[in-house]
């Protein structure tokens, strides 16, 4: 598997526990990932050893905290292969990152009659901000559909694009279907029409290495808590040329240059988009999380998780009368499914009784539910600290539950 599984499990002591008397199997990784020890160590360090508010400080702790925070920015920059550190904005999560663009980009560029394109498989975080922007600016939201197999109907993209299309927002990986979307192609087509593209990377960064310069995407958003980092921290990458011309999002300390009641001027990038005291502890700990996965190697992680996906998919299909939603060959370790006619709430509740944590419900993707005409789904999602043995437990649990209905 390319890395020492036993060693890795030791980094995640939370996994070694029993839930409802069964060994805990955590298959809710797409909702939030567990955090390795180094991340908690970093949080501890910046609470118990060094702590002061960052920027403008002339004292030791303020200087050290500022350096650690800015160093975390460099780590993210290298991780995403961005051109410049000024293009890395610390936000509070994918949702805030997308909202930032939907507010600031649209304030600058969106006018009555313009259009925005999203896809049918987006998470609500990549739909609602655009809907709200369209409402504010009297623009129209257009939707690229996906096939029942869970793949974007790429042949329709050109037909949706018009001269009024101002931005295209699409998930790198779907949080329900697991599909890895052909974003290179989407970006190429969009750019041939001079349309910028925002990539929602919430479900991709934990599982693949990203090169925003190669992709040539204009914005890339992700959340710390899904990549083994802390909650309350996220990233927006944006091309400098766009970030430069966009108006600020939030106003407050640090994002300004000079404030007078007559006229306020704004600070340079990246500070222009980081108003107020940032979640500096979270940012610093996110840096550690990223270094942690880099040390293991994202390629190794991707390969191992793919093995888990295949193993689970085969086992599940062997159960019969089990429908998997999303069967693209390009897929990450996310399996949404339906077992017999069992309601996902029942299934989730009973799996929990057997120690297995999955997510059930509408998965923040109502349009995907509507597509398959279901009211809810059950989702199992894997991380590199999961194992085939855990999948076996999961399969056994499904069999046992099935027999109860």
């Amino acid at each position: 598997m390319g890395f020492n599984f036993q060693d890795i499990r030791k980094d995640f002591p939370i996994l070694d526990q029993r839930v409802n008397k069964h060994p805990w199997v955590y298959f809710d990784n797409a909702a939030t990932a567990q955090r390795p020890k180094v991340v908690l160590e970093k949080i501890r360090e910046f609470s118990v050893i060094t702590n002061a508010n960052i920027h403008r400080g002339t004292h030791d702790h303020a200087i050290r905290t500022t350096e650690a925070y800015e160093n975390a920015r460099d780590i993210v920059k290298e991780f995403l292969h961005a051109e410049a550190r000024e293009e890395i904005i610390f936000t509070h999560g994918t949702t805030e990152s997308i909202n930032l663009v939907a507010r600031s980009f649209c304030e600058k560029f969106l006018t009555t009659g313009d259009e925005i394109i999203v896809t049918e498989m987006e998470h609500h975080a990549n739909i609602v901000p655009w809907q709200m922007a369209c409402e504010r600016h009297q623009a129209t939201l257009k939707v690229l559909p996906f096939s029942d197999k869970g793949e974007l109907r790429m042949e329709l993209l050109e037909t949706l694009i018009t001269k009024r299309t101002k931005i295209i927002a699409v998930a790198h990986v779907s949080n329900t279907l697991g599909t890895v979307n052909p974003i290179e192609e989407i970006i190429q087509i969009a750019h041939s029409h001079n349309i910028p593209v925002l990539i929602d990377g919430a479900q991709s960064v934990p599982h693949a290495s990203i090169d925003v310069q190669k992709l040539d995407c204009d914005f890339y958003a992700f959340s710390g808590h899904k990549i083994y980092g802390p909650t309350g921290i996220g990233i927006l990458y944006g091309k400098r040329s766009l970030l430069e011309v966009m108006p600020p999002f939030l106003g407050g300390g640090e994002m300004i240059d000079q404030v007078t009641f007559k006229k306020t001027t704004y600070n340079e990038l990246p500070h222009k988009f980081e108003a107020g005291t940032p979640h500096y502890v979270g940012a610093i700990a996110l840096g550690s999380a990223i270094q942690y996965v880099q040390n293991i190697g994202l390629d190794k992680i991707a390969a191992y998780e793919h093995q888990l996906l295949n193993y689970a998919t085969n086992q599940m299909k062997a159960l019969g009368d089990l429908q998997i939603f999303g069967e693209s060959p390009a897929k990450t370790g996310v399996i949404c499914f339906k077992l017999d006619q069992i309601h996902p709430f029942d299934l989730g509740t009973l799996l929990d009784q057997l120690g297995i944590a999955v997510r059930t419900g509408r998965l923040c993707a109502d349009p995907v539910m509507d597509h398959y005409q279901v009211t809810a789904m059950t989702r199992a999602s894997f991380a590199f600290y999961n194992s085939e043995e855990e999948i076996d437990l999961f399969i056994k649990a499904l069999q046992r539950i099935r027999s109860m209905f």
Partner: protein
Amino acid sequence: MTIEEVQQEIIADFSAYEDWMDKYTYLIELGNELAPIDDAFKNDQNLIRGCQSRVWLQQKLDGEFLIFEAESDALIVKGLVALLLKVFSGRTPQEILDADPHFIDAIGLRQHLSPTRSNGLMAMVKQIKLYALAYKQISSQKK
């Protein structure tokens, strides 16, 4: 039987099961046995929305007693609904208002009624109490 007696009976029933999975099996059974409500009543007005499962609640007055019918799309929830109906249906508004469905706690299913759960059960209890209050006020006005 009084509300309290019914609750005690339910608690006794459940005490027979040691294993959680057996409790749930029993709940599923209860859910399966619950008479479905007429599809015509499964409308938005009767819908109690939880994020995960839906509950439809229907009421009518029979003399001085309030009769409830209910259903859910999730079977475990339906089982719980059946228990709540046993406790609350066919009672006077005052009995309903005075009652506390403590059996849920006693049989260890408290978490299904917590305000942070999204299965609609908490909302169902609230709704039952609201109906009771409304009928009580209407009937006191009549007098």
